């Protein structure tokens, strides 16, 4: 028997162990008087790093939907937003605007995940039978509808101000800013690694084989006896739930949510990250996301050394991102680390 014949178990388990370790060490920093020192120059890196690990959960969920199952979801941000808003509204105390109920944050986080999963279920129930491009339109529209709802129902969602006064569990227990940031990135990074472990196990098991078969040819998959609707719905709902988790964690880290955090820009960033890295490969999509977010970091420094204004620079950055995407699609259509044959883009 060759190595290929054994059930792979390495990657998923390594991620699980690393994730648990991160959680433990992060927790240790947060609750004990142990303190971390962070050189001032590294602040920005840790900050972007925290956003990266939160977006990591988004891209892993999206990759389960698109990379493995072939479901085109152009509205991923809506599940992120619903998770964040549900968590924020339940946990917040005395928000300036909108609803704040002041429940304990673990309950709020759980409800956030469930709310996002339920929205995923509703979208699936109505639209998962649609062909790729139509599902793309439905998800895009869903995201836009919810964005307007969040902005316009001020009494409930706080309008453009959003929900303030969300508890920040890590900030509440950590001693100082440095310790807080280190603990935050470790805890959320740990969650992302555990997510990675879960999706890796799922896709390496026979379960993932069915998902990839659906991506390849749904009718054939049905004719060998698989209920493809069930699998498509599950993949969509799992992706939505992961986005909800990311949203809830974001709300509890940020201490506030507002429509400005949940624009189509989020969807675009994770899509580009996924395509750049190589869909259907968990580590590749995370790496692709890191590249695109790293570029943002570099350009943040770039702004201070170039003689142009912020607006011009932002526009220039978009051009660069666009060019990178064009180059990847032209020269490596499966992404940097993607497998062209597995994605069917081999020429």
């Amino acid at each position, binding site marked *: 028997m060759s190595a*290929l*014949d054994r*059930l792979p*178990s390495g990657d998923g388990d390594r991620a699980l162990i690393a994730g648990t370790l991160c959680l433990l060490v992060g927790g240790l920093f947060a609750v004990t008087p142990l303190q971390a020192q962070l050189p001032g120059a590294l602040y920005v890196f840790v900050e972007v790093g925290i956003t990266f690990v939160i977006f990591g959960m988004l891209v892993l969920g999206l990759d389960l939907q698109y990379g493995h199952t072939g479901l085109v979801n152009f509205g991923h941000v809506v599940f992120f937003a619903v998770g964040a808003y549900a968590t924020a509204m339940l946990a917040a105390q005395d928000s300036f605007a909108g609803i704040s109920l002041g429940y304990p944050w673990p309950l709020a986080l759980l409800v956030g995940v469930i709310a996002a999963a339920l929205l995923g279920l509703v979208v699936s129930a109505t639209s998962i039978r649609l062909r790729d491009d139509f599902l793309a339109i439905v998800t895009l529209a869903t995201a836009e509808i919810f964005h307007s709802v969040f902005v316009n129902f001020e009494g409930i969602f706080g309008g453009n101000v959003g929900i303030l006064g969300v508890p920040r569990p890590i900030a509440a227990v950590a001693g100082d800013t440095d310790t807080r940031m280190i603990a935050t990135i470790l805890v959320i990074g740990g969650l992302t690694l555990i997510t990675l472990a*879960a999706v890796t*196990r*799922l896709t390496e*098991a*026979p*379960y*993932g*084989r*069915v998902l*990839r*078969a659906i*991506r*390849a*040819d749904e*009718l*054939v*998959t*049905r*004719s*060998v*006896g*698989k*209920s*493809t609707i069930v699998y498509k719905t*599950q993949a969509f709902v*799992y992706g939505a739930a992961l986005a909800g988790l990311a949203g809830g964690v974001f709300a509890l880290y940020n201490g506030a949510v507002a429509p400005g955090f949940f624009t189509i820009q989020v969807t675009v960033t994770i899509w580009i990250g996924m395509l750049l890295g190589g869909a259907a490969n968990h580590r590749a999509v995370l790496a692709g996301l890191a590249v695109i977010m790293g570029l943002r970091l570099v350009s943040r420094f770039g702004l201070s050394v170039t003689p142009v204004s912020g607006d011009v620079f932002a526009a220039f950055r978009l051009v660069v991102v666009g060019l990178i995407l064009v180059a990847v699609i032209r020269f490596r259509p499966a992404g940097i680390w993607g497998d062209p*044959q*597995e*994605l*069917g883009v*081999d020429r």
Partner: protein
Amino acid sequence: MSLLAAEGLVKDFGGLRAIDDLSVSVDEGELVGVMGPNGAGKSTFFNCVSGVIKPDAGTVTLDGADVTGDPPESLAHRGLVRTFQNTRELETMTVRDNVRLAAPDQPGERTLPALLRSGSMQDHEKRVRERADELIETFELDHLADEYSSNLSGGQRKLLELARTLMLDPDVLMLDEPFAGVNPTLTREIADRIRDLNADGMTVVIIEHELETLTELVDRLVVLQQGRLLVEGDPEAVLSDERVIEAYLGGDAE
């Protein structure tokens, strides 16, 4: 009693009646060939029976149960599996994975066992892998086992499709043009395999244009024309039937 029976099937596509009050029944253990000129409704008949499309009227019964309009996945569970005219491989998957996919009742295809890597899933998967490798070897695809199936030739694809179907161990096997685009040597090989399966008790229904191989292979021939049953019976008798010759050569032949 017949294992598979279609009664009064009707299917319209817009103004075109693709099959018109068609009744065909197949007994257990039979090897039946379906032939007819282009547009006779052979593939539509297959699609209606295998649940790919819903017939507008008529019933399909499998082993006594009414399965009219049941989706392909539930028919597969009941033991009816089909192949497709233009081989439909899962091109982005390897030969091995193509065959393994078809394994029925794998607990690892549910979320929790997959997440927990349950023992029953691992045991089952081990058996699935052994069975899949056996089939791949039987069909002499073992040297290609780790290739993506998009790299296979037309004939190899037909073999792979057959191997994949057999993973389900069906009672009724419906083959849509298993010899199309396959060289004569491989055609004979595939025909032998089908004969062996049938000898082991599998009921087989074949659509084919390759008349020579088909008549040699089957117990009974069913000829369709313009969506209706034209003639059925013993292959030799059917082929010498005036109406069949006319249907194939055109009505204006005389």
